[in-house]
């Protein structure tokens, strides 16, 4: 536990341009933020600079929680290490053959290079059958021989992956022992340890990506910790996982694949907490970047988790991750008119370099940002991001004129508005996808933009999808860093069972659950942080015999941290059955009587709830007048006309202030557009709540 002398908790999120830091001083109840340029070669330098920009003595810091993109970037840019694979004879191409898919429905030009090249995938004689029987014993010498060959060929990390390893780990464990005798480093990933779940491609892909990241993420975390210790830091470093929980550095080094969506997950966690504190338990978070628009659903304060995520074509990571739906509609998304005369926005993007036309860095095709600039919604004299002094409105206008207005027979302003409307419609589609399609009524949800771009479009999304309101947090630009500070510690574990419910050995399964719980709780204990309480979530993936897709079935059990004994959890065949029926009915409407049920996987999550802080810390003063926050007036294009619009300094608006649309609210990290017909008010946490008037 933290002592009074080191009661500062620091959350750090490293983005492409900036490293955001959020400081919470538990001793005096104050908080602070810092923003420094990211250091691309070694992110840990920027992190240290960010922290020391506010706190000279790192000894005052108790915990540093970090959402990292080192793993994400290595995956997207394919910059992991040379990785070798040892697998069952006859199956070295599983990783390359995928699930026999292709990148697009239409067009047959796809290509795929697996991260482990074919000459680094070697086979050994061994075989486990689906029921766990060892049909062929492993010869350790073959493994040593293969490992030596891989080393000769330059492999720096190793993955051991055998067919049906989920059903019996014996051969993989023997192979691990043999490989260790030869392998010069700790970077060995064993598939059944990382994911003891049926489906060879998904398991092999996840395990090999883990190996691919291990040396990179490991050495990064080592540098980070060493640098912080040099500066006098004596506390704990925690890493945000893709499931939104945090883990220790030791766990992150063993399971780096769990950091694949570390950064975005922290943002969603913060958004959920901010919104729930403000009385909005149902929100859809919207993160608009240069090339994409990411949405995620939080219902009743809980983030939806996806069982697997495709990082890129053929790059599957199967570990629970905050479900984030991405569409290609960011500020840099390019607008065009196709040969059929249809206006398109995205998915092609100018990104941040060269970026929108108005950046003047060489792109001449209009983007969403260009349309916003032309309509006066983005202040050309005060660009966000800090790289440029001002934006070139005239160039943006010309680009829209040439590429959109002329082909569509519109004037340039109508064309700019059309681009934004189509972009809004695409974003609305993404929101519909995560809400209506999952059975949620958007009227019960609020949009919560974070990051730089989303706040301009939030008002339109209220109108387009019929959302109840929008909530813009006080510091949208540092949401992810704030999320780091409040994220819980969480460990997920899956085990394939694959047995009919009628034949399920309930006592054995209960013992398995308690075993996993014990293991995960000791991982929590080793992390050196305090928890308010520990929660246990037990779920089964189940189906009717004959189906192939499962439904997730939460089973309410009585488990007390460190104290539950076998026979006391309440697990029974009947409980599993009724829980399945509830879950199935909720998903598909009707049950299928007479068909037996199958239990495919067991999932256990152990969550250490970390103490939360009172967001009222962030609130502005109640003193002051709305009029004092007015920066001036500007013409802003809306609904087919220029309208005189008041510009406010968002940070100067006092608690309880109310502003009616149309209005523009500017702050350092974003611009908020309050459409006509909407009104925005400042709540007691400093959030801006936008609603219909």
């Amino acid at each position, binding site marked *: 536990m933290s002592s009074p002398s080191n009661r500062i908790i620091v959350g750090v999120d490293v983005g492409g341009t900036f490293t955001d830091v959020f400081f919470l001083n538990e001793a005096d109840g104050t908080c602070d933020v810092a923003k420094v340029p990211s250091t691309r070669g070694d992110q840990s330098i920027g992190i240290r600079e960010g922290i020391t920009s506010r706190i000279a003595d790192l000894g005052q810091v108790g915990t540093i929680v970090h959402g990292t993109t080192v793993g994400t970037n290595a995956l997207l840019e394919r910059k992991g290490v040379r990785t070798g694979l040892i697998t069952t004879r006859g199956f070295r191409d599983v990783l390359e*053959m995928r699930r*026999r898919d*292709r990148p697009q429905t239409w067009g047959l030009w796809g290509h795929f290079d697996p991260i482990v090249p074919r000459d680094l995938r070697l086979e050994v004689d061994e075989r486990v059958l689906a029921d766990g029987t060892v049909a062929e014993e492993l010869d350790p010498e073959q493994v040593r021989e293969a490992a030596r060959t891989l080393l000769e060929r330059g492999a720096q990390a190793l993955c051991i992956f055998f067919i049906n390893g989920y059903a019996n780990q014996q051969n993989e464990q023997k192979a691990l022992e043999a490989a260790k005798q030869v392998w010069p480093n700790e970077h060995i990933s064993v598939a059944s340890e990382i994911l003891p779940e049926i489906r060879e491609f998904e398991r092999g892909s996840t395990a090999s990506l883990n190996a691919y990241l291990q040396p990179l993420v490991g050495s990064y975390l080592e540098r980070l910790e060493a640098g912080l210790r040099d500066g006098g830091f004596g506390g704990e470093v925690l890493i945000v996982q893709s499931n939104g929980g945090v883990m220790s550095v030791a766990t992150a080094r063993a399971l780096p694949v769990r950091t694949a969506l570390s950064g975005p997950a922290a943002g969603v966690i913060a958004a959920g907490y901010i919104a729930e504190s403000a009385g909005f338990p149902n929100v859809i978070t919207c993160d608009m970047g240069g090339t994409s628009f990411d949405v995620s659903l939080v219902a009743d304060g809980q983030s939806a988790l996806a069982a697997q995520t495709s990082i890129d074509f053929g790059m599957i990571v199967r570990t629970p991750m905050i479900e984030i739906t991405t569409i290609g509609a960011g500020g840099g998304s390019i607008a065009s008119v196709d*040969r059929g005369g249809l206006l398109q926005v995205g998915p092609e993007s100018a990104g941040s370099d060269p970026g929108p036309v108005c950046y003047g860095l060489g792109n001449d095709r209009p983007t969403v940002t260009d349309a916003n600039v032309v309509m006066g919604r983005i202040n050309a004299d005060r660009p966000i991001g800090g790289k440029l002094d001002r934006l070139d409105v005239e160039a943006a206008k010309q680009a829209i004129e040439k590429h959109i207005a002329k082909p569509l027979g519109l004037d340039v302003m109508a064309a700019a508005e059309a681009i934004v*409307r189509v972009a809004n419609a695409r974003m609305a*589609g993404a929101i519909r996808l995560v809400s209506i399609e999952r059975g949620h009524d958007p009227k019960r949800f609020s949009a919560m933009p974070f990051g730089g771009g989303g706040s301009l479009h939030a008002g339109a999304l209220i109108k387009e999808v019929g959302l109840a309101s929008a909530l813009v947090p006080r510091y949208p630009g540092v949401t992810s860093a704030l999320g780091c500070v409040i994220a819980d510690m969480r460990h997920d574990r899956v085990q394939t069972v694959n047995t009919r419910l009628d034949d399920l050995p309930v006592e054995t399964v209960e013992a398995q659950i308690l075993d996993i719980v014990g293991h995960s709780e000791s991982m929590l204990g080793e992390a050196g942080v305090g928890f308010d309480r520990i929660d246990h979530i037990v779920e089964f993936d189940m189906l009717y015999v004959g189906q192939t*897709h499962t439904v997730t079935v939460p089973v309410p059990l009585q488990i007390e941290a460190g104290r539950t004994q076998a026979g006391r959890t309440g697990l029974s065949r009947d409980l599993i059955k009724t829980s399945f029926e509830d879950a199935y009915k909720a998903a598909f409407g009707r049950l299928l009587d007479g068909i037996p049920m199958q239990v495919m996987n067991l999932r256990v999550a152990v969550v250490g709830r970390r103490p939360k802080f009172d967001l009222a810390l962030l609130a502005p003063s109640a003193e002051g007048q709305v009029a004092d926050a007015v920066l001036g007036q500007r013409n802003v294009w809306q609904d087919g006309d220029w309208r005189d619009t008041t510009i406010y300094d968002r940070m100067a608006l006092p608690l309880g202030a109310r502003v009616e649309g149309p209005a523009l609210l500017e702050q350092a990290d974003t611009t908020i557009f309050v459409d006509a017909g909407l009104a925005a008010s400042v709540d007691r946490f400093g959030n801006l709540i936008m609603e219909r008037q």
Partner: protein
Amino acid sequence: MSPDTGKVETQPMDPVTLAVLKGRLEQIADEMDATLFRSAFNPIIAEAHDASHGLYHAETGETLVQGKSGLPVFVGAMSFAVKAVIDRAAKAGGVSQGDVYIFNDPYEGGTHLSDFKLVRPFFRDGKLFCYLASVGHWHDVGGNVPGNYNPVATECFQEGMLIPPVKLYDKGEFRPDIVEILKSNSRLPGSLYGDLNGQINALELGDQRLNALLDDYGAETVAQGLAELKARAGQLMRSFIADLPDGTYSADDFLDNDGITDSPLQIGLDIRIEGDRMMLDFARTSPACAGPVNISRSTAIASCYVALKHVFRDVPANAGVLEPIDFNIPIESLLSVSAPKPVGGYTETILRVIDVIFVALSQAAPDMVNGCAYGTINALSLAGHRADGRRWVMFSFFGGGHGGNPEGDGLNHGNAPISTATIPPLEILEAAYPVQFTQWALRPDSGGPGTQRGGNGAIYEIKLLEKNADVFLFGERGKYAPPGVLDGESAAFNKFTYEQDDGPHEPPMVSKMVGIKLTTGQKVRLETPGGGGYGSPLQRDPDLVAEDVRLGYVTSAAARDRYACIVDESGELDRPGTIVLRQEVASQ
């Protein structure tokens, strides 16, 4: 107010509303797809996505909107299915609100008996607005062979039950007797019942979502939007065709056999491009055959649609794609049969139709096409009884390579161009059935040589763990390999073998197996073709050839014989020797 897709509106719709509507409509069809995939029982729908959903025109049945994740070939075929219902209902006084029709008649609705189509009229304010439809490939619909790929069928009656368009719901009232008939005709009634429920749910969902959309925009606006989307797809398609040089472009390809007589069947195509119209003339095509590789006219048109959409991929998926296309498909040819000619193996024939379109178009549009994909569905059915008497049927499609293309080498181990199907994990198959895979690997030298090489096909070897099983395997490309384009070479042949007490065998019909008996420990082996090459292999960068040898995609022998590159087994390139050899080959 129904979406009149026939006429171009005098007052065009504003482009913004149109773009927004397009997204909303596609989302409805996508969501119907997703609902069925999640709740389906059989892996052919749940994993392989052999299903489709969409919105169809109230009078013509033309495709208005189609889901993106469904089986591509259904995009064209479903409009015929809806039209079949429209015609059938017209004779009985028309459709009513609450009706849902069900049928699988392939001569009216396209494809084959395994595909059950549900068609539901959508009414708005008491008037027919459009149709919603759902199609899914059921696990077993009776007939002689479990899984319904009967390589020796000579009549559709040997392939499965044939249900004409009948009402599953009559004015909202469910008819359980229909379901009883269906279930009594299947080896796997539980699976059938589950899939049927999934399709009903998908239609119900589509109905709700479309109503919500009409609430937001009004029926008139949506109808106008639908008409305009079709007109624009047609306009886009015409502009692409107009870019191609006028002329006649021909290609011929062959099926190995019809499963009954081992003699080839020709598919001959002349593409005539004139201005912004394109004629697909199949006059040089073999007459209908005795076996199951015939297709109906509607299926033939649907497969042309698939080929054109792969080449002109930016054109939206609706009936407008076909608007500038004319067809000549001789009646009672292989591509236009009527009942009771068997059609169960339709996949092979439509893949061949797609291949001849690629090869013919490569002459007119070299930058837009690719070498042919592996060109066969490889439908494998292994069936038997367990020790306790329970029947088991393992049924799955096996993949191959895609063709080389202007952007690069073809994809290794892809899915067929007519589908978006994924293959089930072998661990799932081993957990569900008494089989053990002994190999699941890429097949070296199976991709066609080219400047851009065809992707490799696969080797799948399966050992039986139970006492007895029958093997049925339906494939093609055993004697006519997938061709390359623009001097790219053909991929490897499809090769099937099976093991019996006296050793390994090849099936008499090369690419088809019928009721082969296996006992414990015996194996069946599929070695599938890759894709065809793109451009001459003599133009391929020798360093890339050497790299292919080093990684084992191409053997050293093939590097010499087919690329004129001298590369040793380890991938070391003999550069001077290669220059000499290539000069020699070029001068021959």
